[in-house]
């Protein structure tokens, strides 16, 4: 059958029509005699992306029974999907259509109309040649389970569980310890209002425990996980037990939180157990239970040093929340007695929220002194600090309270290995992109929220939890199927030497090795179609569907043609 190619040039109002000579393009294409083996139809239209334009195009495709379609218009980043959707309404497979950008890459950047016209002809010729070498591809629909596994029963995990659990979605919440709550359990007050919000936090536990759509697994850990978005097979169990519970879930949320180091292990901190040196979380819990700050002998301290940034330089990151909670502790002390001398030592102040500056001013106005240090050591209960000017000072205190850096939770590395997701150089889990996808990972369907992703406080942990719940709600709709990417890589068995290079370079774990056939195989449900495996394959066994070298070389051939 002779191919019948439709070429539709969009005038884009005046945007394209005034800057290239569309009539001349049609003439050149039709009179060149290059397309004798195909039937070529070339037409132009005012605005193809408009409602009328789409209807027109649909009718043209159907009435002409095109085998291939080229649309010369704006950037495919603007309207590729628009025209794919038009193709889907017809018998034309959308992968037998090619969009050519003659606006951004031609009409708008070449002021000379003749040259712009010539360039447009070149791009369209490339498009026609390429489209003839394109192949039909078919979208697949995969069944999904909307259920979700959450690892970690801290505040982030609980918030995500409550946001997701419902009639049509079961949440499996796995907590390593015997209790829900994580580090946020047993806090005294919450910033900024320091009112009754802390009670709301503790009521979460009951809400989670009583929710019939949340299945709790305490003292449990994940043992294995395999699968992809919509279909993860997971085993959970406790301790070293071989046997475990097997679950099928659509997504996994990692909310394993953080840990606080022993402050005595921090560099520059040298004291004994008798010395009045405490970690900030000890004091916060002391205030929650005893309602009073006291030394080991039960007496009230007369002077307190609050040391921020414990281990910050060594860890190489700011823990974000310490400055504000240390000021909160200073407030507790001043509430107890205005007579107590309070000095806050900080390396850098971090005041990220809108209330923070005002809070700082208030605390400073209550007689709390803020001292910036370049270097600081704690020797017994005395603080030796070197200021930014290099001057050293030593001062004895009745009590020293230290805010240590937040560290990745125990077992983070092992969990990353199990889930095949990367870790950041700080040891926390790495998000796909800090700005554009802070809760996603390189694996679709695996999310990292709360302090598992990096130092975070309660507010952003909960925000992350809500964000992940939102994402999952739209990705895994109960009763609906998902459509994975079709422009994926494929491996030709005959050429594959089984060298495993493609497995190593794949960011998504989308390629596995088939031991029986001794070749690598692409898992099409996981592959995102970047083509890195293609670029690395030494034996030419890979193909990137819809972006094959044969197809690209057709565009190249027109680009390098003698003019």
């Amino acid at each position, binding site marked *: 059958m002779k191919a019948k190619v439709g070429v539709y040039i969009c005038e884009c109002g005046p945007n394209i029509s005034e800057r290239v000579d569309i009539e001349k393009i049609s003439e050149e294409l039709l009179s060149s005699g290059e397309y004798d083996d195909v039937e070529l139809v070339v037409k132009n239209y005012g605005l193809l992306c408009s409602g009328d334009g789409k209807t027109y195009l649909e009718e043209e495709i159907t009435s002409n029974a095109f085998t291939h379609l080229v649309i010369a218009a704006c950037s495919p980043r603007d309207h590729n999907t628009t025209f794919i959707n038009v193709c889907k309404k017809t018998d034309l497979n959308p992968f037998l259509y090619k969009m050519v*950008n003659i606006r*951004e890459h031609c009409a708008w950047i070449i002021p000379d109309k003749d040259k712009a016209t010539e360039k447009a002809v070149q791009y369209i010729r*490339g498009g026609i040649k390429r489209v003839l070498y394109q192949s039909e591809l078919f979208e697949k629909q995969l069944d999904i389970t909307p259920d979700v596994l959450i690892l970690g029963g801290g505040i982030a995990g609980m918030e995500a569980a409550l946001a997701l659990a419902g009639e049509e979605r079961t949440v499996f919440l796995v907590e390593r310890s015997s209790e829900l709550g994580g580090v946020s359990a047993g806090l005294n007050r919450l910033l900024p209002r320091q009112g009754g919000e802390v009670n709301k936090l503790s009521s979460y536990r009951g809400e989670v425990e009583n929710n019939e759509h949340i299945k709790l697994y305490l003292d449990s850990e994940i043992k294995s996980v395999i699968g992809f978005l919509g279909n993860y097979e997971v085993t959970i169990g406790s301790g070293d037990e071989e046997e475990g519970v097997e679950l099928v879930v659509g997504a996994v949320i990692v909310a394993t939180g953080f840990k606080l180091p022993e402050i005595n292990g921090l560099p520059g901190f040298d004291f004994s157990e008798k010395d009045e040196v405490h970690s900030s979380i000890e004091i916060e819990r002391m205030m929650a239970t005893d309602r009073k700050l006291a030394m080991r002998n039960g007496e009230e301290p007369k002077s307190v040093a609050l040391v921020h940034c414990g281990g910050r330089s060594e860890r190489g990151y700011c823990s974000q929340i310490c400055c504000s909670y240390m000021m909160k502790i200073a407030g507790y002390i001043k509430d107890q007695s205005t007579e107590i001398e309070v000095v806050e030592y900080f390396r850098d102040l971090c005041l990220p929220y809108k209330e923070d500056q005002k809070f700082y001013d208030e605390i400073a106005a209550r007689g709390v002194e803020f001292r910036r240090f370049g270097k600081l050591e704690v020797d017994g209960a005395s603080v030796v600090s070197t200021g930014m000017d290099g001057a050293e000072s030593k001062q004895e205190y009745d009590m020293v309270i230290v805010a240590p850096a937040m560290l990745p939770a125990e077992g983070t590395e092992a969990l990353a290995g199990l889930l095949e997701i990367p870790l950041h150089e700080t040891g926390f889990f790495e998000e796909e992109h800090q700005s554009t996808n802070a809760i996603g990972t390189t694996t679709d369907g695996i999310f990292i929220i709360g302090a598992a992703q990096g130092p975070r406080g309660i507010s952003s942990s909960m925000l992350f939890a809500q964000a992940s719940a939102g994402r999952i709600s739209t990705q895994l709709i109960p009763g609906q199927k998902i459509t994975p990417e079709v422009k994926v890589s494929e491996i030709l068995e005959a050429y594959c030497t089984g060298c495993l290079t493609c497995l190593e370079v794949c960011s998504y774990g989308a390629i596995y090795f088939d031991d029986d056939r001794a070749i690598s195989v692409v898992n099409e449900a996981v592959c995102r179609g970047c*083509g890195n495996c293609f*670029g690395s394959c030494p034996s030419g066994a890979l193909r990137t569907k819809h972006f094959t070298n044969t197809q690209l070389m057709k565009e190249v051939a027109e*680009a*390098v043609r003698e003019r």
Partner: protein
Amino acid sequence: MTEKEQEFSPNIVGFLCNWCTYAAADLAGSTKIEISPAFSVVRVMCSSRVDHNLVLSTFFDGADGILIAGCHPGDCHYGKGNYFTRRRYAQLKKVLETLGLEPERIQLAWISAAEGNRYAEVVNSFTEKIKELGPSPINNNQRL
């Protein structure tokens, strides 16, 4: 320079990643910055997809210069594709030398979606460089 060399109009192919540099090219277009018609864009999903074969075939087909451009390191849409691109580029330079092609005929650039101006600068200065280098030995009927 002889008159013939002055008339030399090169053919340059740019393999641009869909997410960053192709978008930068779109931005340069929307802001209507003038770009040499000697430069032709070929869209790929990721710069890491550009293999040695594609680059060499493009030269053998007659390109005078090739630009490979993608997201800044750390910003790859696919995580770390561009780190692989960087290694392949270093190898390709050597391959070109071996073939008797000037290694300057190939260039790698990191251009984000926001850098429309920079895209135009990179493309236009690369075009100038290729003009100075003259036609590819392959096109000059020189035996490799």
